[in-house]
């Protein structure tokens, strides 16, 4: 069975590893690179717990054979904090008790980061759409939606964008 070397830039760091045909991006992150923040839920693309940013776009990493994305830029939940300082989205999840069991949290946060990168001032309906591929069985979603809206406000305030003045 052919094994190939795959190069990825993960959270800004160049990485190289050996991938078998069945090595998905999810398995490579978790088992080869030790980045276990990204969770394996359904392996069907249905639960969203393995969501990472692939060249900036959120994808379900369980459906991506690693060898197909050789050379790509990948962002995972481990890359968000600056030392001990959590990102706006992470801190809003903590403050708003939007985690509970925590299994869906990394995927939720990556979907939220992708949303806020393209839309700094989303409505709650836009948040619902952005996380519609991320399943949570604990929270009932309301604390998560509120945390993402809160994070958006924190970020606008911090960056002093025009939206913050409104």
């Amino acid at each position: 069975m052919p094994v190939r070397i795959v190069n990825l830039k993960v959270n800004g760091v160049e990485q190289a590893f050996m991938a078998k045909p069945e090595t998905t991006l999810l398995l490579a992150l978790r088992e080869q690179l030790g980045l276990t923040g990204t969770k394996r839920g359904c392996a069907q693309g249905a639960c969203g717990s393995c969501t990472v940013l692939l060249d900036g776009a959120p994808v379900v990493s369980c459906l991506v054979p690693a060898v197909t994305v050789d050379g790509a830029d990948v962002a995972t939940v481990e890359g968000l904090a600056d030392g001990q300082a959590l990102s706006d989205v992470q801190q809003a999840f903590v403050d708003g008790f939007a985690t509970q069991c925590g299994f869906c949290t990394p995927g939720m946060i990556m979907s939220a980061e992708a949303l806020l990168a393209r839309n700094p001032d989303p409505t709650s309906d836009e948040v619902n759409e952005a996380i519609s591929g991320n399943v949570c069985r604990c929270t009932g979603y309301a604390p998560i939606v509120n945390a993402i809206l809160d994070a958006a406000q924190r970020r606008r305030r911090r960056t002093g964008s025009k939206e913050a003045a409104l």
Partner: protein
Amino acid sequence: MLTDVHVPDDVPAAVSLIAAGGTAMGGGTSLMPWLNDYASPPTTLVSLRRAGLSGVHLGGSTVTIGAATTLGQIENDEDLNPVVRSIASVPVRNLATVGGNLFAHQPHGDLAVALVALDARVTLFDETGTRELPVEDFVTAERPAALVTAVAFDRPAPGTFKYLKAARRRFNSVSIVTVAATITESDGLVTGARVALGGVAPTIVRARAVEAALIGGPLTEATVRDAAQAGLAEIAPADDAYASAWYRTRVFPVHLRRALLGH
């Protein structure tokens, strides 16, 4: 079991790998769940991610979309936005491809329903060269053994393209009834109608009886009700986890009305 994954750099290389027994893969959103979870026969994947098939080209009023373009990449298209946003979720749409959607089994494949209504063409490539086929023929008959390289459609006149997908939830849910149509009117009468249905049969339905009933009359609740009645002969819904055949039949006229009249 996956025996190998190839990532060819161009279409001829992809076609020879497929001819040698490989399975073409767009975004993998149908194939990978199956390969991850089930005892599949030995499978060699040919990923189209780098085969040069991504991108949208506007030539006059014709929109040509490369087969490996993701649904996420066409989300902001003026006509296809409501269609794309009705399909799956953001992290799936960023993998799922336009070409791959033509292979989705009903009740999936809402983009293909819209493309049938838009009278889109699919470009196929094999060792004999390139040819075009109506998307309608491609998705309603046995698919030819050739690589899908692009789909193309002519921009509909403003306001003539209608789309509605009824599902259990507003986002990320499979079709119960999908209606896509292009309706042209002149002097208050329907002069042209092309209606495609999803979720209501084993394959996408080109609803010719609905079209025939609409053409020549005004677009009103009464004419749409009569057209839906005619359409009942063309649909053959199934029971699944999302809705029963009975329910799909019952609500088809409602969603046809909402799609065509907006209420």
